[in-house]
């Protein structure tokens, strides 16, 4: 277990890394609009992957060490739940047409309930967002 101070520092560092990567991507994209170079295009792709990685690290740190008293914690928690839930709904929807009736019925019910839950997570996330501003 780490102390709250260390946790805050860790989260702050992860967030700064993520924000820096985003700034670098924006700058690279603007340059790419002006000069279409293969090298730049490749850099943009690399930065996108680095942002995904940085975002994952930030979320993991926030979920693991962040304080639930902060709205940012809930932003990350609901964001993570919505991502996983949406991925599941997407997979279920894609499969549903090719499934036999037994599965189709069960899957359709799952999709319906999951969509309602994801909606509710979305509302809670927006409330946390308003609180964080």
């Amino acid at each position, binding site marked *: 277990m780490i102390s709250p101070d260390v946790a805050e520092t860790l989260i702050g560092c992860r967030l700064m890394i993520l924000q820096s990567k985003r700034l670098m991507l924006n700058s690279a994209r603007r340059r790419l609009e002006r000069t279409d170079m293969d090298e730049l295009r490749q850099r943009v792709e690399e930065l996108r992957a680095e942002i995904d990685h940085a975002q994952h690290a930030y979320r993991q740190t926030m979920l693991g060490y962040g304080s639930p008293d902060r709205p940012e914690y809930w932003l990350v*928690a609901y964001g993570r739940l919505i991502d996983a839930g949406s991925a599941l709904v997407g997979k279920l929807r894609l499969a549903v047409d090719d499934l036999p009736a*037994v599965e189709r019925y069960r899957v359709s019910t799952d999709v319906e309930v999951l969509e309602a839950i994801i909606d*509710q997570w979305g509302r809670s996330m927006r409330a946390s967002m308003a609180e964080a501003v």
Partner: protein
Amino acid sequence: MEARVLPTAPDLTELPGEDLTTSALPEVAGWIAIYEELASVLRSVISRADGSEEVHQLRRNLAFIEDRLMAWRDRHAELAGVVIDHKDHSLTYGGKSIRLTRREADLLDFLLRHPKRPFTSKQLATLAWQNSRLSDAQVRTYVMRLRSRLREVGLEQVITVVRNRGYGIAASLGRGAE
């Protein structure tokens, strides 16, 4: 952990020309993996934020996710055609039956319920047998012994070894010798 097999859905879901025997095994395994991920995030949030207003609702969400997870795990076992009777630790597959030890039955049941995921020896010891004192070598021996027993019912390839990641269940598992 008992392998609970869901009853077959009522006939009213069957439409003319419908093929109810189609195996949806790979899809089901994929859903189980994401349901597990969702449940794990929910559990982690609930444990950290216990006592907050949000948690009451999240607990209800978790109850639904866990219920579906259980149901899809059962369905996966049903589609795989593997039946484990925990009373006498017998395994039936493709019309053949063998007696396993309790440890072997628990291990196979655990792996079948968590498809598409490799587990290290340490994880298996804790999660399948609730015994963290078993050494890696002991787990390896149990796995090898189980694999050898499974050969008797034609399931020799079902437990796979994923290099540096552990043991898992083969994606190609399906109703055998029907």
